[in-house]
């Protein structure tokens, strides 16, 4: 039995001696937020972002990212300082008092990591609370952009920093559909089910491609053979979600999650790293 994990279970499940699982998206721990802390450490001081507030939902996905960020931002010689650091239950839907408490710590950059419902509530409460921060990062606007846009509106997303996923990168795949083709196919198949097109839809599509390719390259359907076949694709298979690249423990590390910022029209532009950027970060509007 070989388990294909489309979007990244806990990082703890991947180890070199666990041959039962293959991850098709980046593991949450260190790979997702890597560009985020690089951005904060390298660009933050230049942009006047030195005091950082960290607010996260206490589940595996966002909690692990918060832990990795905290470690990186507190490393010796770090030019920034964490002035607020709190976890909240994932069921949280009221952020007003938390936003007020964050404001009392007087941060330059607020990093909020939650699930879709958390990010919607946080961004809406932020908009309606009257509090302003120099810069705000939220997790899901770049992952489920449609859902966030519908619930928070472009006025609520303007100026927000987020991860840019395959949804905003529009990479040219060698295997599988392009972003536009996939979006069209998705709308045709699921348009009326109430599930918005987002990065999770891409992850599902790419999972199908990886499994198809793995089956084509496998000698038998036994676990070890399948695993060997999947590893033979590593570094070669280019999909909509980037170059498929497996670490020794079975986790994928080829996916790109650069940092982006929404402009006033609701377009997401990449602002970091410089080699991928197509816009400059704008500070002081949220």
């Amino acid at each position, binding site marked *: 039995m070989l388990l294909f994990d489309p979007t990244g279970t806990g990082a*703890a*499940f991947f180890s070199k001696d*666990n041959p039962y699982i293959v991850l098709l998206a980046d593991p949450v721990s260190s790979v997702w937020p890597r560009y985020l802390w690089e951005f904060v450490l390298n660009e933050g001081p230049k942009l006047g972002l030195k005091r950082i507030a960290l607010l996260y939902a*206490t589940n595996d996905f966002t909690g*692990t990212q918060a832990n990795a960020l905290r470690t990186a931002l507190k490393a010796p010689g770090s030019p920034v300082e964490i002035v607020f650091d709190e976890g909240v239950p994932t069921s949280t839907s009221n952020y007003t008092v938390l936003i007020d408490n964050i404001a009392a710590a007087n941060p330059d950059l607020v990093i909020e990591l939650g699930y879709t419902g958390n990010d919607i509530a946080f961004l809406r409460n932020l908009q309606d609370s009257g509090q302003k921060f120099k810069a705000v990062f939220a997790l899901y606007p770049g992952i489920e952009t449609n859902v966030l846009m519908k619930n928070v509106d472009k006025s609520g997303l303007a100026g927000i920093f987020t991860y840019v996923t395959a949804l905003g990168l529009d990479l040219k795949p060698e295997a599988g559909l392009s972003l536009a083709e996939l979006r069209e196919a998705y709308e045709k198949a699921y348009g009326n089910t109430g599930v918005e097109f987002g990065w999770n839809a891409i992850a599902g599509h790419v999972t199908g491609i990886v499994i198809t390719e793995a089956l084509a390259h496998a000698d038998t359907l036994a676990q070890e053979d399948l695993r060997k076949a999947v590893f033979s694709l590593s570094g070669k298979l280019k999909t909509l979600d980037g170059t498929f690249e497996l670490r020794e423990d079975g986790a994928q590390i080829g996916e790109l999650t650069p940092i982006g910022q929404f402009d006033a029209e609701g377009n997401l532009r990449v602002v970091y790293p410089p080699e991928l950027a197509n816009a400059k970060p704008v500070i002081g509007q949220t």
Partner: protein
Amino acid sequence: MRRLLPDLGLAAFLLAALTAAEFLYRNELLVFNFTIFFILAQGLNAIYGFTGYLPFGYVGFFGAGAYGFALAVMHLGSAPLPALGLAGAAGLALGLLLTPLLRLSGAYFAIANLAAAQAVYQVIANPALEPLTRGPYGVSLASVFAPRASFLAALALLALLLGVVIWLRRGEMGLALKAIRDDPLSAAMAGIPVVRLRVLAWLVSALAAALAGGIYAWHISVFYPETVFDLSFSVFAIVFTLFGGAATLSGPILGAALLYGLYNLIGITVPQYFQLIYGALIVALMLFLPRGLLSLLTDRGHDVP
């Protein structure tokens, strides 16, 4: 003894069928899950069928057992069987802690029990307890992973529990419990130790769920807090038991076999449709057959196991 034959026959048939399925059928996880739900339905039967208390938070014991097992393996380096001892102890401790809830009647008990299960989950999943429970990040017990051995443990637990339920049904203790369920005041006046017997049934039920949780943790070996505190465990155990008929041996078995079978046919791909079906089943049962499918037979004077 002759009265026991149908009960024993049914128990033996169920255990034999599960064993055969485990060794002959390729999808071992499915057979294991069936076994777990047979245990949970019977465990719930022990408290609901014989005392009338409906524990909505039954999953709390299951989750406590799973974490009892995980803590023993992670921190004490226990082998699986002693770790199951800790799983059972965790369930018993939680059961004892919650005995004051038995003071509450009907719906209050059900809701307070649900709140208690949620509270246990929220404490275990809190990141402040990460050094102990790994908090929300889940545990990995790959070092003790043993699907066959853990299946056999589940089978043994089911056998034991079926024995307990048969004893409850046919023995004096069961009669006393039913007397309490139907009229606690008269039972107390007749000299039946109401509180002690209720607590005993409660602890038996808690222990069964906790051991099932421990075995489940052993079998799946990697899980999150929300995996083992998923309210579906409570809901399924309740629905399976109500559907077949509580206070019988065969009712929960029938319910679990039919409905969990149906769940595996449609519930995994389209869970909302399965939810719709069992929701409608509950409403129909409460209106027309409040004591379950088997009451069609028992009401006509048939003695079903």
